[in-house]
């Protein structure tokens, strides 16, 4: 049996930041590696057929000695070590996608709406602040630290996170806790598929996510509007639900920075603030994580944050929503239970008092 040529053993002992394994998680270093390679390539448009395994990311480059050592061990002597040009995740790059399930047939909001009307407090609290302030945000290289109750903790490069997955187009309704809504054509893959690869243990009852903490790049973090870094969490059942998406793009293109590049969460039956952006940490926990909004205003925002027209925010009604892009004279539309995904997710909350667990 040949080992995956791109495999590299996971670093042993305590993790040092910036180091990650570029092990092919798909075959886990046990197969030929062709699956991983094929899938990685699939993420690239045909006119940019740079094989992803030929590209040396910056962090890989900085760790090249270790890399060479590992590469030697892995018998993959033919690995191209020269760093090839081109930021693979330059803004607006087209992604290869397939049609995913659960898409609504409602008309998606315009690119303009989706990319200029955002809540991303790391870049400012105004709706257009993220669009203005996130343009120079550096999302490559990007490392995600996986920790907690799982079999494969470690630091993973963006490429390793998304590599094995097929990107799907999914048009979801998006309902903000502020009573406005959009329809967004996301590109992503089921979060559950990703989490499975880390082999969550039986003690893993929740997943906790963290956004990058970098006040230099994220001007919004220079003021303590929320406690930084932003933290969000899901129950394991919610995280594994097929609706839950790890999002890498929108409108068939890579995620613009203001939308949470390079990796963000989307849970369409929950209020938008659950969709944590620019994720750098995934932790499997026994206990329910203390999430950012819940911590800052526990009376107003709960852990579950399921869209529910019957449970008002203490200061405003959630019964109706304003659809962005519907114009100055449009009527608000009624908000649907679980944002219209009741059929899919209601059984996750069987027996739970949704008024108390808002």
């Amino acid at each position, binding site marked *: 049996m040949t080992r995956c040529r791109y495999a590299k053993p996971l670093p042993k002992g305590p993790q040092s930041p910036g180091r990650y394994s570029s092990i092919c998680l798909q075959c886990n270093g046990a197969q030929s590696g062709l699956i991983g390679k094929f899938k990685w390539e699939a993420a690239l448009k045909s006119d940019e057929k740079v094989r992803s395994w030929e590209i040396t990311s910056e962090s890989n480059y900085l760790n090249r000695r270790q890399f060479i050592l590992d590469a030697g061990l892995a018998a993959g002597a033919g690995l191209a070590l020269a760093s090839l040009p081109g930021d693979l995740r330059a803004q607006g790059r087209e992604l290869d996608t397939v049609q995913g399930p659960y898409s609504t047939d409602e008309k998606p*909001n315009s690119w303009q709406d989706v990319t200029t009307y955002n809540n991303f407090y790391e870049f400012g609290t105004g*709706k257009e602040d993220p669009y203005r302030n996130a343009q120079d945000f550096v999302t490559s290289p990007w490392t995600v630290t996986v920790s907690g109750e799982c079999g494969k903790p470690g630091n993973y490069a963006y490429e390793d996170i998304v590599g094995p997955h097929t990107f799907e187009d999914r048009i979801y309704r998006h309902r903000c806790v502020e009573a406005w809504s959009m329809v967004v054509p996301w590109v992503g893959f089921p979060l559950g598929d990703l989490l499975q690869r880390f082999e969550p243990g039986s003690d893993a009852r929740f997943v906790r996510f963290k956004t990058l903490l970098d006040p230099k790049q994220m001007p919004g973090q220079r003021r303590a509007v929320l406690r930084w870094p932003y933290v969000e969490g899901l129950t394991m059942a919610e995280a594994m639900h097929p609706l839950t998406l790890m999002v890498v793009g929108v409108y068939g293109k890579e995620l613009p920075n203001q939308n949470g590049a390079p990796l963000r969460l989307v849970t369409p039956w929950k209020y938008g603030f659950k969709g944590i952006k620019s994720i750098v940490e995934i932790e499997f926990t026994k206990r329910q994580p203390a999430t950012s909004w819940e911590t800052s205003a526990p009376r107003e925002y709960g852990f579950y944050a399921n869209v529910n027209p019957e449970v008002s925010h203490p200061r405003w009604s959630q019964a109706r929503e*304003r659809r962005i892009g519907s114009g100055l004279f449009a009527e608000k539309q009624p908000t649907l239970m679980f944002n219209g995904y009741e059929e899919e997710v209601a059984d996750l909350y069987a027996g739970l008092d949704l008024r108390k667990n808002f």
Partner: protein
Amino acid sequence: MSQGSIRFAKMLVFMVCLVPLGKLVLETFGIAGMSLGANPVETLLHRLGIWGLNFLLITLTVTPLRFITGKSWLLRFRRMLGLFAFFYVSMHFMVYAGLDQRFDLQAIFEDIAERPYITVGFAALVMLVPLALTSTNGMMRRLGRRWQKLHRLVYPIAILGVWHFYWQVKLDTLDATLYALALLSLLAYRLWRKYVRTAHARRTLQKPA
């Protein structure tokens, strides 16, 4: 300042006060590439509300400014500024009632009754109405002393207005806090001045003849 130059300055101030409205009109109709953004109703609502509050605070700045500079002609602008505050606040309410709630009276009443920040804002608007109605020279003459008493309502109105703003902010209360501080200093100035003057008057009275 002469009568002529005051009249000219008033016209100028009037035009300047219309600039925020003008900008909104351009944005509403998409003139010169301007736009209200992705959520036009919200933009209109917030901008009109903020300008209502701005004009309230500007109006409250006139009197202190007059005492500090000693230029009593400043008072000649106070009525116009106050009426602009009323104008922007009314527009704010009209956008809320018309565009946001589409004149659904039941929904509006529910909002006013159940949402404290709307209750507070609506109270401020209601109290502004008599002030606007009694802003004419004729009413001032007719009401005499009571006019000034009535127009002290502007203080609770401003407090309710800032409160309304503070309460509707989701989390980032920086702007609202700055408005609160501005209002606080305007009110504090008046209290301080009153204190100084009564103290002075008392001293004067106590002096032996």
